[in-house]
């Protein structure tokens, strides 16, 4: 009896000793979750949240550094100013147009690239590299390079045209040609990322589904539309989210290719924000523009997220 009592006591002490450790090494799920999310949260707070708050604050103030005057509260003046600013509307329209053209464009091209890359090549790395390079090429480099490609005299595009017996086009002399060149460049640059994600999605579709469809009598095209496409939907939505958000932020490519020219016909909202903030030093107005753009991206994200959730 006594011996049994001692052992339980010893066991108790043992347990108490470990308990202290338990608290340290084995926090509860919730504590652990908080601890693990902490570094990310801190970083985001520091680098994004705080600056964004400053930005919102600034957007409600008159703060143009070229005036040298201190910030004064302006209410929604910066926002109302936007309504009658033709350049705001033009750049917003250009941004929306670029989004509407290049997002589906990149999706289609990306889909085609992914389907092609999914073929059984013996040597895989050149194909993979070709898919990855455009993605890894810095945007500003891509803009520079393509501006060079589309140069009316020294560009390779017009050279090919001429060799084929066509007249060269002075791409950046015309709003529509310049717009086309920019969109082409964006599609080239971004379609490979789309392709990568779609390729990833393609490879998760079980092969037996195609066999089942084949036995069921479906031909190639039917298989594509009845199996491949529906099953790719989740991948496509994710790709679209990222693509659309970056399309709304389009900056580097038109900036390096045309500077928004001719005139302001290819300027985007992001360029206009940059211009107002960094060139014109009108921080109040620039911030208000940025807030509008943020709202725009958030709206798009929200729509997509709802799409994902509706499915799930």
């Amino acid at each position, binding site marked *: 009896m006594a011996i049994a009592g001692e052992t339980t006591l010893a066991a108790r002490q043992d347990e108490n000793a470990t308990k202290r450790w338990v608290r340290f090494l084995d926090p509860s799920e919730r504590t652990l979750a908080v601890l693990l999310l902490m570094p990310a949260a801190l970083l985001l707070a520091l680098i994004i949240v705080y600056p964004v708050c400053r930005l919102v604050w600034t957007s409600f103030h008159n703060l143009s550094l070229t005036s040298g005057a201190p910030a004064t509260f302006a209410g929604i003046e910066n926002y109302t100013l936007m309504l009658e600013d033709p350049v705001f509307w033009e750049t917003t329209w250009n941004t929306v147009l670029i989004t509407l053209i290049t997002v589906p464009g990149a999706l289609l091209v990306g889909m085609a690239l992914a389907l*092609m890359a999914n*073929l059984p090549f013996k040597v895989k790395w050149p194909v993979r590299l*070709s898919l990855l*390079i*455009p993605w890894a090429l*810095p945007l500003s480099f891509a803009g520079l390079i393509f501006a060079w490609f589309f140069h009316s005299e020294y560009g390779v595009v017009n050279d090919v045209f001429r060799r084929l017996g066509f007249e060269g086009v002075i791409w950046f002399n015309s709003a529509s040609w310049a717009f086309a060149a920019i969109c082409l460049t964006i599609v*080239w640059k971004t379609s490979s990322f789309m392709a*990568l994600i779609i390729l990833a999605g393609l490879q998760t579709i079980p092969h037996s589904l195609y066999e089942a469809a*084949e036995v069921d009598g479906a031909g190639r095209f039917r298989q594509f539309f009845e199996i491949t496409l529906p099953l790719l939907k989740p991948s496509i939505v994710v790709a679209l989210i*990222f693509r659309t958000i970056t399309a709304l932020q389009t900056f580097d490519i038109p900036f390096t290719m045309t500077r928004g020219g001719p005139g302001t016909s290819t300027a985007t909202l992001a360029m206009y924000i940059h211009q107002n903030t960094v060139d014109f030093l009108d921080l109040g107005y620039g911030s208000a523009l940025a807030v509008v753009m943020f709202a725009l991206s958030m709206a798009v994200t929200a729509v997509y997220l709802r799409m994902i959730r509706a499915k799930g």
Partner: protein
Amino acid sequence: MNRDTPDNRSFLSGKPLRILIGFILVVNGMFPALWILFTSLKTETELTAKPITWLPHAPTLANYLRAFTDQPLILFLFNSFMVAILSTALTLFVSVLAAYALARLQIRGRDLILSAIIAVSTFPLVTLLVPLFEIMRALGLLNTWVALILPYTVLSLPVCTLILVSFFEGIPRDLENSAMIDGCTRIGALFKIVVPLSAPGVFTAGILAFVNAWDEFLLALSFNSNPMLRTLPVGITLYQGEFAFPWPVISAALVVGIVPVAVLIVIFQERVVSGLTSGGIKG
């Protein structure tokens, strides 16, 4: 998977067609890079020749020599490399922790947190330039690698976290349980078992973070004015004068800048694609 059915062979996977498709893919992806390579081997005079030449007439390495001597290109490479590597490491560390919490622990509002992370990534950094500069100055970080590493980490954090979340979700819980029974703590199990097993995902996230950091220009220009700390994209603009734009030399520098990333990609391409494949980005 080889789809070797009778009617298959007559169709898309016919060998000549496949070669043609491969050719299209390679041209589409590589042409600009190749063009830059060719340009870097031409003289400036050849560049303004009409009609333009494709392959360089008299290939010269002079532009490379100038690229390395006009500016401290090696230093740019070194800085870019260190900043990219360090921010990649930090990104991975932070996003591994966050992704694990989101993938495995029972957290209320998990979807909300994920959405918030995506939403945050929608904010264009350009517009945050000034407040960020103030923060970096307040923290005394201007003209240090850290000034770039922190924002770059945030730049890649959302997408890396998303990738890792779906990877971790794909790892059987029993492996972790097994490790915990075998004597690991939860965090021990995460780093000893879960992370090594998510290698493709970690590589994919890593390359993404690396490329993002390798490419960034605006912050690098604004936060690090010290010539000793310049990164490659900023460095490359230095070849350009107030007016002069020496294409061949800049091309040479561009080539030097693209090569490390291309090498990285060739080394890890299997993992990157398979990383994206294993449900990599599922949203």
